[in-house]
């Protein structure tokens, strides 16, 4: 029997609501990156039989075109389905301490709100062609170019 290798398996699926507007920035070489946090809710029955809600906050990062679409269409309170992988992120606090956490690197984000769709900000020029509609039935925007191999 031949030897097996361990599968590269790292997949997450989350549905939640944005806790803030997404932040879009550009890396030094011009790549777009969007960051936002989603709140996931879990409802469970406590030991005494009451229903309780428990929130979990998860950071999401999206790159390139997907990042720009997030900035364009998402805002605080919007619901999304996020598919992606877990990755580590480390940073230094102001007093120089190292911290790290895990976040989701999104491959696909589905915008779940039907109404009030484009999150058009104040600065959006009105003369441009109307933004792509983002409905529930709209296929999700996805990005897979640098995500080899699968």
């Amino acid at each position, binding site marked *: 029997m031949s030897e097996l290798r*361990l*599968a*590269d*398996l*790292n*997949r*997450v*699926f*989350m*549905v*939640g*609501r944005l806790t803030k507007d997404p932040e879009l920035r550009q890396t030094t070489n011009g790549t777009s990156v969007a960051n936002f946090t989603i709140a*996931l*809710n*879990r*409802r469970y029955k406590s030991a005494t039989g009451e229903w309780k809600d428990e929130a*979990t*906050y*998860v950071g999401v990062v999206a790159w390139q075109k997907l990042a720009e679409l997030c900035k364009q269409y998402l805002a605080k309170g919007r*619901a999304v*389905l996020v598919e992606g*992988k*877990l*990755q*580590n992120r480390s940073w230094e606090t102001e007093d120089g301490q190292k911290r790290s*956490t*895990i976040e989701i690197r999104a491959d696909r984000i589905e915008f*779940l709100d039907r109404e009030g769709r484009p999150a058009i900000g104040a600065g959006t020029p009105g003369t441009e062609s109307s933004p792509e509609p983002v409905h*529930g039935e709209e296929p999700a925007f996805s990005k897979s170019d*640098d*995500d*080899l*191999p699968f």
Partner: protein
Amino acid sequence: MTELKIPNLNRVLLAGRLTRDPELRFTPSGTAVCNFSMALNRRFKDQAGNWQDEPTFVNVVAWQSAAENIGKHLHKGSPVLVEGRLESRSWETETGQKRNSLEVRADNVRFLERFESTAAAPGPEEPSESPDI
């Protein structure tokens, strides 16, 4: 058309290896809890066309019989498949600072290692061939 509600969806699927021996402990009420850290590998081609490995480290917590089985049978380097959900964990540092981190609460942990089936090896107490939990 009926109105939809948001599904409570929080699912994680990971395969990797333990970075150290798992820590099994018991709560004051006797419930088993096992914490371990696993390293996942992502292999990708860089811009120059070379294969690169990028590890991701994830903390996992398992409870009850799963925790006990992990504590008994797994060790540093053991390959596992973990299914569960992301959960926040808060704790205080020695200096009293509050910290928050995300970990995976496992509801299904599969051992991916073939166990030597010698009688000498301490097998699982439950009669199962491979201790999937």
